């Protein structure tokens, strides 16, 4: 079950700088910690986050094991045209979550 909180404005003026914020539930297990049985818990992290606006990439980042659980990402973008922003997280153990928000630019 994916669990995401996105904070994006519903409307923006053309050329306006807007902030997009996204929080996702994920353990970000480093792969360095031993469990209660002494064995290393296998790494389970998000590897990549990509944001696209009407299909065009506007922001991406690579994650590392040093990033805390339930990572929060915030970035700025200039609003050019109405459309859909898609946020896409992919990672270990087949983690694949896509969320969309519509932004009207006028």
């Amino acid at each position, binding site marked *: 079950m994916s669990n995401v909180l996105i904070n994006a404005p519903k409307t923006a003026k053309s050329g306006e700088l807007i902030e997009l914020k996204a*929080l996702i539930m994920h353990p970000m297990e480093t792969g360095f910690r031993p469990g209660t049985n002494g064995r290393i818990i296998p790494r389970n992290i998000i590897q990549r986050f990509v944001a696209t606006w009407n299909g065009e990439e506007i922001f991406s980042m690579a994650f590392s094991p040093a990033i805390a659980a339930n990572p929060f990402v915030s970035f700025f973008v200039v609003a050019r045209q109405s459309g859909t922003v898609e946020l896409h997280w992919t990672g270990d153990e087949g983690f694949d979550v896509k969320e969309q928000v519509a932004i009207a630019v006028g």
Partner: protein
Amino acid sequence: MTSRAAIALLIAAFAASYALAQGSDDKRRSGYQDMGEALQKMQDDDSANPGMLFVQLGRQLWDKKAGSADKACADCHAIAVMKGVAARYPAIPQGADTPLDLEGRINLCRTEQQRGAPFPPEDQELLALEAWVAYQSRGEPIAPPDDPRLAPFRAQGEALFRLRRGQLDLSCAICHDDNAGKKLAGATIPQGHPNGYPVYRLEWQTLGSLKRRLRNCLFGIRAETPAWSAPDYVALELYLMQRARGLPIEVPAVRP
């Protein structure tokens, strides 16, 4: 309402309820007031507060059928009825004679009504449900019930609060009554109020219960930690809620 206005309103509501809770002689402070500005902002912004992920999960679980009775929480309780519940728990449920904390109460429904296996301690689903229930009381002042049957348990809780124990021979009161506001290494010692639980603690990188926090302190003073099911925790919580009477519920709070 824009999210910015909502945040401003929330901050104003917190400030107002603190002012209300704290007459001029009242020196009580929520742990919130001892945190840095960045953490306070994180708690106040519902889209940056990671505890809100658990609230959201709890909202989904509330409507999900579970157990062999195939019943969801929502089949019996409208969520609106849960307003104020977290502000008065622990309490003695109908037909029982010992008090239960909120997670105990959820587990009671789980076994009696849903006929499922009880959640283990610190189970993510249990914490999420607890957060969703307690979230309904956000901003409500803590109001322990006047039930006279609670008095002996509360007195036992106070005795535990003042009991010196562990290799460091400390009691809860020595740090959180006598030395609150001073520094322990780099951190300010909080007064230890239970108004934000379950809290998202950055050190844990997850939501955790008051029980987990109490065990943390006991471990810190190198004392023996009672079993998860021990009645000591509920007794302590009863006393702590009495001690924090009037402070607003902050769930989901963020703490360092």
